[in-house]
């Protein structure tokens, strides 16, 4: 199996965008191609394009995005496909790019993910279409509802408090202030969102016990990476970051059917698989991007990925262990909470943050000497999870 590296990255600023869906994807793609030093047009070296999006066909009424984008970018006659795997679409698309190169079928693959989410109750409903079509979605259940019910179980079992969740949001907002592509580049104080006089106004309940700051925003945005075979990496402008391991695991589609309702089993299995493939352990990671669509997920994923024993993650947060400068900095990008969460872009965006850390390009939020990092991209309410380990070559 051939080794695979990342030689180009591109990332639009997350947040509301006026660009049409395909132009948003194109902006990230061109930035990634330029970063890698790849010329478009005749004689270009891109063998395959993957486009990841959960909702282009639902929210934007566009199908076949990959066919449109490959032509618009002047990368014909490269192979092109769309990848839909809910909020884990980005991680899945990078995995498929990896497989295409590792198999020997391709030398160079462009992976682009993006989303135009829309807003309000319609966007909430669109995201909920990933739930079970009979036993969950028709009830009006949403991802936020399940996160809320999961949070209550975790609080009861492990003594996690609302203040612990708020601390994660405070950290992620602080990190996002140093990330120029983040949606919410504004600090927030623990007091303001927990005990302050305007708390009910700025941090109202969303799905009890969750409040606004326990939940990521709705975002538009796109992210892109160029993958290549390590044996031809010297053809590109940038030194490659190695994709050392990828793991993926699924769990019961319905949340109510989980054997242990406080576990995120697919996160544990996917991470273990990715570490094993890389020949590394959780202790070898210098940073991690964990899928904090809800702050409770960052906490429990940090345990399932092996950074803390089960039920101890919130102690680590109280001690500052997940801050930049701490033992294992988590979501240096600002995470989904503050960087934003355009579903199809998120898995790729996480990988880009770790690439920046390993290149030493994360100005203002750099983890000094970072050599390896983990990304966890979480689909459904944990029913399909992709974990990726990146290392500095």
């Amino acid at each position: 199996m051939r080794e695979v590296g990342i030689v180009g990255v591109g990332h639009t600023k997350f947040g509301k965008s006026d660009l049409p869906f395909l132009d948003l994807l194109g902006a990230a793609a061109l930035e990634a191609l330029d970063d890698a030093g790849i010329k478009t047009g005749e004689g270009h070296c891109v063998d395959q394009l993957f486009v990841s999006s959960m909702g282009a066909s639902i929210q934007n009424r566009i199908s076949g995005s990959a066919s449109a984008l490959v032509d618009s970018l002047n990368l014909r006659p490269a192979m092109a496909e769309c990848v839909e795997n809910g909020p884990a679409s980005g991680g899945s698309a990078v995995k498929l790019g990896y497989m295409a190169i590792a198999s020997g079928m391709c030398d160079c693959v462009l992976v682009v993910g993006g989303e135009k989410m829309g807003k309000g109750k319609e966007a909430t409903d669109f995201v909920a279409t990933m739930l079970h079509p009979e036993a969950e979605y028709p009830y009006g259940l949403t991802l936020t509802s399940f996160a809320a019910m999961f949070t209550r179980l975790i609080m009861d079992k492990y003594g996690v408090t609302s203040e612990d969740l708020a601390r994660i949001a405070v950290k992620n907002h602080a990190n996002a202030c140093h990330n120029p592509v983040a949606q919410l580049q504004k600090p927030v104080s623990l007091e303001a969102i927990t005990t302050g006089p305007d708390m009910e106004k700025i941090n109202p309940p969303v799905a009890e016990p969750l409040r606004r700051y326990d939940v990521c925003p709705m975002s538009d945005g796109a992210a892109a990476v160029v993958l290549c075979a390590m044996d031809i990496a010297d053809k590109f402008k940038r030194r490659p970051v190695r994709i050392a391991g990828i793991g993926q695991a699924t769990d019961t589609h319905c949340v109510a059917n989980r054997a242990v309702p406080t576990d995120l089993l697919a996160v544990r299995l996917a991470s273990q698989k990715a570490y094993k493939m890389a020949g590394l352990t959780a202790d070898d990671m210098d940073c991690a991007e964990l899928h904090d669509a809800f702050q409770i997920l960052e906490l429990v994923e940090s345990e399932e990925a092996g950074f803390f024993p089960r039920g101890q993650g919130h102690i680590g947060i109280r001690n500052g262990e997940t801050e930049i400068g701490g033992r294992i900095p988590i979501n240096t990008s600002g995470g989904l909470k503050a960087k934003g969460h355009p579903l199809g872009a998120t898995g790729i965006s996480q990988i880009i943050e770790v690439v920046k850390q390993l290149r030493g390009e994360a100005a203002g939020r750099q983890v000094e000497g970072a050599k390896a990092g983990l990304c966890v991209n979480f689909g459904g309410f944990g029913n399909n999870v992709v974990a990726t380990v990146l290392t500095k070559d």
Partner: protein
Amino acid sequence: MYGYRCKKCGKLHHPARLVCDKCEGREFTEEILDGEGTLLTYTRVHNLPAGIDKPVLDFGIVQMREGVCVSGQLDIDGEIYTGMKVRATEGVVRVMNGVEHTGFIFVKA
């Protein structure tokens, strides 16, 4: 509302599935689920999706007396708490494209 009991090993499932996750059986018998259960967790939701025309709605995950765990809406006045006894009823949970969808609505037992 139904549970689906595996003809081979007797495990009760909800929702329906193609293959039993205990014994690989592929045949099931339908069984009405209208009994009592225990509320495992719950939430009051303020940001409901399009298609649910209410300001707030309560949801829960319930372990039915028969063993299977299911999600549903709650219709409970007064205090809601983990571990409370509830009873399954069937009602219209949403109207989509003019079609009424029925599901579990749990009331106080």
